[in-house]
């Protein structure tokens, strides 16, 4: 429940100050609400993308394993291992950040290896099965990196949404109603004071009139 803001003295200056604070709080609330809606939209989109990438990764993994088992059967485990050791290359990944509505999100992109500089397999000892397996594995790796980016984005966006929601709730349910209540209380107090003042003046006027009547 909203609590009335404790004020030093119920004065008109205090009332003006409170009104200014209420205006500011409403401004902040509007901005926070906008940010929240944008963040939620981004989160939902990321969730959808995450689900589709996960499905794709599962399909790609099953295809890659199937292809690898065929290749192993065709070449034999030892010779396949030898070929893969020769042509093994660490993937180059570009990592950076991007900013979505104030949230810094990681960004990964796999660098495409130059076919002229990359280590080549021995064409005489290998087959198209191995090429196909390599291609499918590369695809899997790209999808894993994409999924890693999405999962981290999801986590960061979720955390930020929690934070912004708390701010929004505090403004909506405590700060703004509290200020509203205090402004109402002060306004009522001033009205009451005005009424008392009017009554006092009437009474004084009556007393003066009575005194004048007795004088005659």
């Amino acid at each position, binding site marked *: 429940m909203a609590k009335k803001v404790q004020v030093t003295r119920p004065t008109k200056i205090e009332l003006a100050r409170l009104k200014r604070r209420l205006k500011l709080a409403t401004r902040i609330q509007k901005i926070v609400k906008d940010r929240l809606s944008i963040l939620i939209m981004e989160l939902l989109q990321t969730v959808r993308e995450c689900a589709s990438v996960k499905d794709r990764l599962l399909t790609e993994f099953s295809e890659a394993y199937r292809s690898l088992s065929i290749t192993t059967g065709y070449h034999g485990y030892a010779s396949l291992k030898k070929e893969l050791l020769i042509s093994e290359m660490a993937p180059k990944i570009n990592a950076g950040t*991007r900013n979505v509505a104030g949230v810094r999100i990681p960004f990964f*992109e796999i660098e495409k290896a130059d076919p002229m500089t990359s280590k080549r397999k021995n064409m005489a000892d290998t087959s198209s099965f191995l090429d196909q397996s390599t291609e499918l594995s590369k695809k899997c790796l790209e999808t894993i990196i994409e999924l890693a980016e999405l999962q981290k984005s999801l986590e960061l966006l979720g955390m930020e949404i929690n934070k912004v929601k708390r701010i929004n709730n505090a403004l909506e349910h405590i700060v703004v109603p509290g200020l509203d209540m205090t402004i109402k209380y002060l306004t009522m107090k001033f009205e009451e004071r005005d009424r008392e003042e009017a009554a006092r003046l009437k009474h004084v006027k009556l007393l003066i009139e009575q005194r004048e009547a007795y004088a005659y």
Partner: protein
Amino acid sequence: MPTDHSSDGSIAGYLKDESKVLNAQIPRKRRSLTELLKEEHPHVVCNDGSAHFFKRKELEYLSQMLYEDERNSLLLPIIMEVTPDQSGVTIRSKGGPEAKIFSKILDMTVVSKENVITIFKPQLNVVRKALKTTTQYVFLFRNL
């Protein structure tokens, strides 16, 4: 009687901080698509000093849509202005390549009126899905 000595400064400061956080991603200087395509790691420097990287895939996707002169005039990231109490976002476009891009992405005619393109929130999803790194939000405090 307990008193509240906190001044308006605390709320004003909060508003200032919030605007700083929200608009930290605004680039110090936008760069043309042609310029970015030539770079090994295409990026712009943001207001808070951090770097905002662009996905090469997205840059190539944009370059496929545009002619040479449009690529030179298109400044990235595309800034999307979010104004409170409005149902959509606005994009300021001088040359018009932005309108062409959004028309293709949304698969509908998008017109730039007085150098301003308006996109509604349901369409924003589609745009952001296609252009994750090449678009950025800016929160405006006017109309408040």
